[in-house]
């Protein structure tokens, strides 16, 4: 007879960061499935956003295209939120890639380009979290992840494809707008989102949920 395996959930003290259980790379089934479903749910949100809001937004900002980048943060939410929720290397990338694959299938205007953007956005968020050693997941970490997630695809991809002819000041301006949006919308937005999910009791089995329960006492 074998006893079922058991892991002791990390104990959370008040105000302490709870880290993912069983070591950073010990992905639980729940981590994987939740990250994937979250990616799909964000895909649904993107579809609605694309149909309802993005077209008027693009029209509105066509007089000054870099301002269009201010909405970019919405597309980075899966990466930053996935990383904040699961707190393991790869979560941001997996979540963002699944959302990007959905966009790819559901008829986004950039073809396979969306997969490259998604890959770089996810990787950017991973770099942001890695800079803090996957130890911190507060608002600062979220903003850093959002900033790198926004900057990497602009610098490594968009400057050489969609905005190649922009003059350098404009290239930098569009980078600035992107990073601002990454910091505020994706960074602070994801942080607030994960905190609200913890309050709603939807993520008790994740580190952020345990932190909330510990803080509540």
């Amino acid at each position, binding site marked *: 007879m074998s006893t079922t395996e058991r892991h002791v959930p990390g104990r959370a003290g008040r105000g302490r960061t709870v880290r993912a259980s069983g070591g950073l790379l010990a*992905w639980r089934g729940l981590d994987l499935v*939740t990250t994937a*479903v979250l990616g799909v749910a964000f895909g649904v949100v993107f579809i609605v956003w694309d149909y309802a809001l993005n077209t008027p937004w693009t029209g509105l900002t066509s007089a000054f295209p870099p301002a269009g980048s201010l909405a970019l943060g919405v597309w980075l939410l899966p990466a930053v939120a996935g990383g904040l929720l699961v707190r393991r290397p790869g979560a941001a990338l997996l979540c963002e890639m699944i959302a990007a694959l959905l966009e790819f299938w559901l008829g986004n205007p950039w*073809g*396979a380009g969306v997969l490259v953007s998604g890959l770089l956005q996810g990787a950017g968020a991973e770099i942001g979290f890695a800079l803090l050693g996957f130890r911190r997941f507060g608002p600062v970490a979220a903003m850093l992840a959002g900033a790198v997630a926004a900057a990497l695809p602009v610098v490594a991809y968009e400057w050489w494809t969609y905005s190649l002819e922009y003059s350098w000041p404009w290239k930098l301006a569009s980078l600035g707008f992107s990073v601002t949006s990454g910091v505020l919308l994706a960074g602070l937005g994801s942080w607030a989102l994960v905190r609200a999910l913890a309050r709603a009791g939807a993520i008790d089995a994740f580190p952020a949920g345990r932190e909330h329960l510990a803080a509540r006492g």
Partner: protein
Amino acid sequence: MTGLLRRTGPLSPLLAGFVLMAGGLTVRDVAGGLAGLAALALAAPFALAGSRVSWLRLLAGVLALASVTWSNWLLASPRELEPALVAGLRVAFFVVPGIVLAAFVDPSELGDHLGQRLRLPARPVLAGVAALQQLDDLGQEWASMARARRVRGLGPDRSPVSQVRFAADLTFSLLVQALRRAERMTVAMEARGYADLARPGPDRARRTWLHPAPWTGADTTLVVLAAAVALVPVLLPLVVPPGS
């Protein structure tokens, strides 16, 4: 004649998309861009014969190209038409075929191929495939929450602010439902052996797959075809020197 895309697996259309993207980045002038598009048009029948293409989706790509051309004119210094056109053509070269190719990547087959041919770890691949099955349900959940809010007097009015707030509220509720669902899915999946895939050690069962993931001649042909097309803008300046 049956088009290549009816006989390929899911990996070669993806790879072809990336090959074309690499080729597109080398477009330097209008002539190169037009030659590339012409090559695409010549190659298209071989890939697409017998398949239907969604023109509506292509329209979205055309709009994107217009916005790229426009912004590359507006924000260039000095403002010149030709470089902006080149920017549009460069993006058109990989965006248009990319949108078409996307329809030929079957999500389930992609899972088979990622797991068997690319040997990605099975657990994240399976989580992704399972999560994709929830797409339509989550979409319907969004719709039913929107209906419920309408009857409760919480529907949006015409102002953009109230629309954005409504969308944000629904997004949050959808994520809560998605997380609940993910928990129940995990229970079902773990009980069906998903948990065993994580067990370390030599006695771990190697996962098998119901469907094989072959790379066929059609896959190779498609990638070669894409490479040939992608080389047109690269090679054109060597054959016809720019400015001649």
